[in-house]
């Protein structure tokens, strides 16, 4: 009876030791062996496992996006209700300022409207005095002499007749 009990315990101990050895042997080569990785290529684990986003997170992202849009538009627009009483007061003040400016300003008439026309630079004082002092007399001697001579010379010119300046196309067409 005593011999049988000691044998079963020994068998159990041996089995446990074998299992331990197997576990240690399976772990040692994985830790000792370094896996080879190609350069420039991401790990397959990250590619195979996509990022999972929950429904609540999606809603939060959408809300943030729309809030940004609303804030940007609010900066550009002007709230009309805020302008009401203050805006009216400022408008009235501006109107008073403008009316005061208009009253204070004085319009001056340009001298070109009332002044006499300017004389040309070519006109000299001596010529001006001559013009204003006495009227110019007609040089009858000069004019009558050359008028008569020119008319006499024109009478001496004769123009020859060269016939009709008409070209007939009827004969050429036939």
């Amino acid at each position: 009876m005593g011999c049988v009990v000691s044998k079963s315990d020994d068998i159990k101990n041996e089995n446990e030791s074998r299992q331990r050895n197997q576990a240690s042997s399976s772990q040692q080569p994985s830790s000792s062996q370094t896996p080879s990785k190609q350069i420039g290529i991401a790990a397959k684990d990250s590619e195979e496992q996509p990022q999972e986003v929950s429904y609540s997170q999606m809603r939060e992202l959408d809300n943030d996006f729309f809030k940004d849009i609303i804030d940007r538009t609010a900066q550009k627009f002007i709230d009309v209700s805020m302008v009401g009483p203050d805006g009216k007061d400022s408008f009235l003040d501006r109107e008073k300022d403008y009316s005061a400016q208009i009253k204070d300003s004085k319009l001056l008439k340009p001298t070109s409207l009332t002044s006499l026309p300017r004389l040309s630079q070519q006109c000299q004082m001596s010529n001006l005095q001559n013009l204003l002092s006495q009227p110019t007399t007609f040089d009858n001697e000069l004019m009558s002499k050359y008028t008569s001579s020119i008319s006499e010379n024109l009478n001496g010119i004769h123009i020859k007749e060269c016939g009709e300046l008409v070209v007939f196309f009827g004969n050429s067409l036939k």
Partner: protein
Amino acid sequence: MDKQLADTFTQLSQQNGVVGYCCVDESGLCLKAHGNKQSSNAGFYKSLLDKSKFLTQSGEPANIVIETDTANIFIQQNDKITLSVSKLP
């Protein structure tokens, strides 16, 4: 014949104080011109002398003087031509 006419115009331009002239025919066309803007005023000279006939009882054209700052323009009309001479004052 043309030479005599040209000589006459040359003598006219060589007169003392003459700076330009313009000769206009019966129709108001420019026959000969010398000086600044003389040819472009040919029709005006002719028309001006024709209008001056209404001022006189005899119907003869008047002798006209146009005074400017730089020169005086004398205009006279004949049976055939109208002559204008621009002369220094």
